């Protein structure tokens, strides 16, 4: 079922610009239950595509929001999280993020701040939900405050992929957030990236004068000397 065909169309991320397409990414440490959550939400209907070349699994999902058909691509990490960081293309054009930790393992909670920092580096504005998974193992955790979510002003969901608690709600809310983000925001980073792409093209056309770039006042993406 899970093909290993890393066809170009799957990674053609231009499609996420279309109105009815959203991309939602999952983040979090190894073995916090990201794939189990996906599978619980999609039940039998899922056909994950393993793109092992990219250490990533795609789950496609179709739903209807306000009488409109919406195609959702969920991106799951497939072991890439073990490099402590994801490839930039993982974040590219994402509309929402589901960030998971395991309530039985403190380190996965502590590592949220690293994941969150990396997320914000690439996607400063997209909605993000913090997920406390495996509450079936210890229901007492639902009585506690987890400051990370509060401090960052993020919603926190208590879920269990095993017994299903709040899993469907989590994904449906994530899709709604992704849609509303897409409809309402003009993401600053997207604008910058677009400008940069155009800029690159112009520069390529103008190969005669290499100094051109630095002559544009106030335009530094990253100063190599610093």
């Amino acid at each position, binding site marked *: 079922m899970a093909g290993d065909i890393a066809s170009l169309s799957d990674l053609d991320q231009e499609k996420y610009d279309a109105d009815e397409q959203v991309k939602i990414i999952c983040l979090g440490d190894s073995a916090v239950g990201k794939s189990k959550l996906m599978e619980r939400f999609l*039940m039998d209907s899922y056909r994950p595509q393993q793109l092992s070349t990219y250490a990533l699994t795609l789950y496609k999902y179709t739903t209807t929001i306000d009488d409109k058909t919406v195609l959702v691509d969920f991106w799951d990490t497939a072991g890439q999280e073990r490099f402590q960081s994801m490839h930039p293309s993982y974040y590219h054009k994402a509309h929402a993020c589901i960030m998971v930790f395991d309530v039985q393992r403190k380190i996965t909670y502590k590592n949220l701040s690293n994941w969150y920092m990396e997320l914000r580096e690439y996607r400063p504005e997209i909605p993000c939900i913090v997920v406390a998974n495996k509450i079936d193992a210890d229901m007492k955790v639902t009585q506690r405050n987890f400051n990370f979510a509060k401090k960052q002003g993020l919603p926190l969901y208590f879920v269990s992929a095993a017994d299903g*608690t709040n899993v469907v709600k989590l994904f449906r809310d994530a899709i709604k957030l992704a849609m509303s983000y897409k409809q309402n925001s003009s993401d600053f980073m997207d604008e910058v990236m677009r400008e940069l792409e155009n800029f690159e093209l112009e520069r390529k056309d103008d190969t005669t004068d290499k100094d051109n770039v630095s002559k544009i006042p106030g335009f530094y993406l990253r100063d190599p000397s610093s």
Partner: protein
Amino acid sequence: MTYTAKKCGVRFTPPAIVLIYEDAVTQKARKRIMPVRSFSKFSDCSKAAERLKNNVRHSAYLQDVSMRQMERLHVILRDRLLGRTLEQSLASLRLDPNEDLNKLGDEELSRKKARMDQLFEQNRKKKDDPDFVYDVQVDFPQDERLETCSWDEEESDGGF
């Protein structure tokens, strides 16, 4: 004749699974040593475990011992052939809540995941269960929480 398994373990040389059991008739504790044959560091532990569990001479004694446990015992035997110490292999089979699993290789990680799957399967509501509900919603009111998570306590240096 029925046998109640009490304890099981391994013998390294030559490799064997050791079982302490009680004979229901005599009510006496007995030890049974079951050699693990044609087993190498390349062997598939789950297949080897299955083979022993279904062995005509041993299966009656191994009724109470789960496949999972049989497999773990074989993993310990194989680790030995790979030059790992008993401590190392036991640690790889145990869950340490403070261990960073991001740092493990494929096989070590899958051992930990297998261990976690035990609890997952135990608590799992399956689609075919009579009380299965697809969309389970439980509200955990945020403001009623009195207890601050101890995981946040040592964050005085502003980690988050």
